[in-house]
C-alpha cells in the first residue's frame, strides 16, 4: 500500500501552537532590550546588545516558529511521518527556550560560562529535532522541489548549530579560532542554508496555493536550492582561503540568488489570479521587498568598500534580514496557519459543519492588518535607527509593541478555538 495514504497524520493542535505562542514574546524581549540599551546597541554587530538581539530573534522567534510550523507542514505538505510529535515537541521546546535565554544572557552580560552552558542544550534540542525531521523527510515517498528544499534546510540548521556551538566553546575556553570568519560562515548557514532555504521550499508550496499564483518555474525551483548550497560551501571556503577577494567573489552571486528568489516571488504575486489582498500576502510582500533591499545593499557594500567598512553596514543588513525578511514572512504564515488549524480541528470534533465558524471568525482581518502596519513602521524605524542612533529606543518600543500585538492576536485565536470547542462539546453532550 502507498505509504502516504493516511492524509490525516497532522499532529495535535497543541504541537504547533506551543511554538507559535512562545515566538512573539522573544520579539517583545528584543524590542525592550533595544529600547533599554538605546543608541549603543547598533554601533556594530559585535556589541553585546547586538549579539543578544540577533539570537533573541534567530532562536527565540524564528527557530521556535519554524519548528512549530515544520511539525504541521511535514505531514500535510510532503506526507512525512514525524515520530511522536507531541513527545518531541514537549522535549525540544523547553530545551530550546532555556538554551536561548542562557545564550542571550551570556552575550548580554559577557558571561562565557553561560554561553558554554547553553551549548549542550542546543545540541540536544536541535540534534533531536533534526534527527526526527530528517527521518520523516527521507522516509516519505513524496517527491518534489519543496521536499528537496526542506531536506537541504534541515541540514543547514544542523551546520548552523554545530558552528554556533563551536563559536561558543571557543569563546568560553579561549581557543584560538578565527572568530570573525567562523561567525560569517555560521551566519550564512543560519540565514541562507536554514532559514531562506526553508522559506523558499515552503514558498514553492504555499505561494501558488494561498494566492493562486502560477507555480514557480521548474528551472527556478530546481536550481535555487542546489545553487544556494553550492555558494554557501564556497562561502565557507573563506575559512581556509586567506584572500580578501574571496568573500566578495562569492558574496555577489549569493546576493544575486537572493534577489532572484525575491524578484520571482514578487512577480508571481503581481501576476496572480486572486485579487484579494490578505495579511499573509501583504506580509510576504514586505518580506520579499526587504530581501531585495538586503541584496541590493549587500552588493553595494561589497562593491563600494568605503560604505561596507562602516560597522553599521552589517547591522543594516541584519535588521533587513531578521526583522524585515524573516519576522515578516513567519508572521504572515502564522496568520494563515492558525485560523485554518482552528477550523480544521474544530470540524473534526464531529460538530455539524455549519456550526464551525469560518476562518475569518477565528482571527479578525482588522487585527492582523493593524499589527502588520505597526510591524512595518517598526522595521522602518529600526532601519533608520542604524544611521540615526537617537531613534534606537523608539524603534525598540515600536518593535516590542508590534510583537506584543502579534502575541495577543495569536492568543485570541487560540482562546476562540477553546471557546468554540467547548460549545461544540456541550451541544454534543445534550444531543
Amino acid at each position, binding site marked *: 500500500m502507498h505509504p502516504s495514504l493516511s492524509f490525516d497524520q497532522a499532529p495535535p493542535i497543541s504541537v504547533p501552537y506551543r511554538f507559535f505562542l512562545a515566538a512573539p514574546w522573544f520579539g517583545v524581549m528584543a524590542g525592550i532590550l533595544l529600547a533599554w540599551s538605546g543608541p549603543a546597541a547598533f554601533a556594530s554587530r559585535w556589541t553585546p546588545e547586538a549579539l543578544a538581539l540577533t539570537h533573541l530573534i534567530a532562536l527565540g522567534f524564528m527557530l521556535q516558529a519554524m519548528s512549530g510550523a515544520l511539525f504541521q507542514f511535514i505531514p*500535510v505538505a510532503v506526507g512525512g511521518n514525524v515520530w511522536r510529535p507531541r513527545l518531541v515537541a514537549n522535549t525540544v521546546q523547553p530545551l530550546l527556550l532555556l538554551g536561548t535565554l542562557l545564550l542571550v544572557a551570556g552575550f548580554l552580560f559577557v558571561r562565557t560560562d553561560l554561553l558554554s552552558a547553553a551549548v549542550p542544550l542546543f545540541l540536544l534540542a536541535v540534534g533531536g529535532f533534526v534527527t526526527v525531521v530528517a527521518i520523516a523527510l527521507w522516509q516519505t515517498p513524496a517527491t518534489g522541489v519543496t521536499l528537496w528544499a526542506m531536506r537541504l534546510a534541515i541540514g543547514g540548521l544542523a551546520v548552523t548549530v554545530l558552528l554556533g556551538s563551536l563559536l561558543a566553546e571557543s569563546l568560553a575556553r579561549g581557543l584560538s579560532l578565527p572568530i570573525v570568519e567562523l561567525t560569517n560562515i555560521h551566519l550564512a548557514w543560519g540565514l541562507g542554508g536554514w532559514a531562506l532555504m526553508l522559506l523558499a521550499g515552503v514558498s514553492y508550496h504555499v505561494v501558488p496555493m494561498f494566492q493562486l499564483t502560477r507555480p514557480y518555474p521548474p528551472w527556478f525551483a530546481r536550481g535555487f536550492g542546489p545553487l544556494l548550497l553550492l555558494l554557501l560551501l564556497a562561502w565557507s571556503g573563506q575559512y581556509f582561503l586567506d584572500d580578501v577577494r574571496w568573500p566578495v567573489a562569492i558574496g555577489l552571486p549569493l546576493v544575486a540568488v537572493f534577489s532572484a528568489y525575491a524578484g520571482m516571488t514578487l512577480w508571481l504575486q503581481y501576476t496572480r489570479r486572486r485579487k484579494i489582498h490578505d495579511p499573509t500576502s501583504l506580509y510576504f510582500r514586505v518580506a520579499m521587498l526587504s530581501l531585495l533591499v538586503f541584496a541590493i545593499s549587500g552588493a553595494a557594500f561589497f562593491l563600494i568598500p568605503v560604505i561596507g567598512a562602516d560597522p553599521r553596514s552589517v547591522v543594516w543588513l541584519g535588521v533587513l534580514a531578521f526583522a524585515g525578511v524573516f519576522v515578516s514572512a513567519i508572521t504572515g504564515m502564522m496568520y494563515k496557519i492558525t485560523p485554518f488549524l482552528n477550523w480544521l480541528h474544530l470540524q473534526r470534533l464531529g460538530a455539524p459543519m455549519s456550526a464551525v465558524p469560518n476562518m475569518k471568525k477565528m482571527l479578525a482581518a482588522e487585527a492582523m492588518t493593524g499589527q502588520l502596519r505597526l510591524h512595518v513602521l517598526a522595521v522602518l524605524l529600526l532601519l533608520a535607527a542604524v544611521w540615526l542612533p537617537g531613534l534606537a529606543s523608539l524603534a525598540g518600543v515600536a518593535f516590542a509593541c508590534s510583537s506584543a500585538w502579534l502575541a495577543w492576536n495569536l492568543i485570541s485565536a487560540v482562546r476562540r478555538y477553546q471557546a468554540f470547542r467547548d460549545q461544540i462539546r456541550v451541544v454534543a453532550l445534550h444531543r
Partner: protein
Amino acid sequence: MSITTALFQHHKYCDEIFADAEEACANADWEAGAAAFQLLRGQLETHFSSEEELLFPAFEAASGMTSGPTEVMRGEHRQMRDLLAQMQGAISSRDSDAFGGAAETLLILMQQHNMKEENILYPMCDDHLRSSDIGAALAERLKQA
C-alpha cells in the same frame, strides 16, 4: 495524456472562477458575484460527482482499496459542499464578511485537497487504470458542464 489530465486541468479552471467570484463578492458586486459563484458551484459539483461516480469506483475496483484515499476525498467533498452552501447563504443575505470567511476556508481546503489528488491519488489512478477508457469519459463529462 493521462487518465486524470482533464481533472488536473479542471482544478486550474476552478481556481480561476473562484478568484472571480471572490473578487466580485468582496467588492459587493452581488450580481456579478452571484453569477460567478453559480458557475463555480456548478463546476465544482460536476468535478466532485465525476470523481465520486466514475473515477473513485473504478479505482476502488482496480486497486481493492475502498476505505483509503477515496474515502478521505469523499469526506473533503462533503466539507467543500457545506462551505459552498454557506457561501450561497452569504450571497442571499448580501453579507461580504460571511462570504469572504467561507471563501477563504474553502480556498485552503480546496487547494490542500487538489494537491493530495494531484500528487498522490491521480498518479495512483493513472497506474491502476492505465488500460481503461475512463479518461475519455471523465473529459467528456467535464466538458459538458
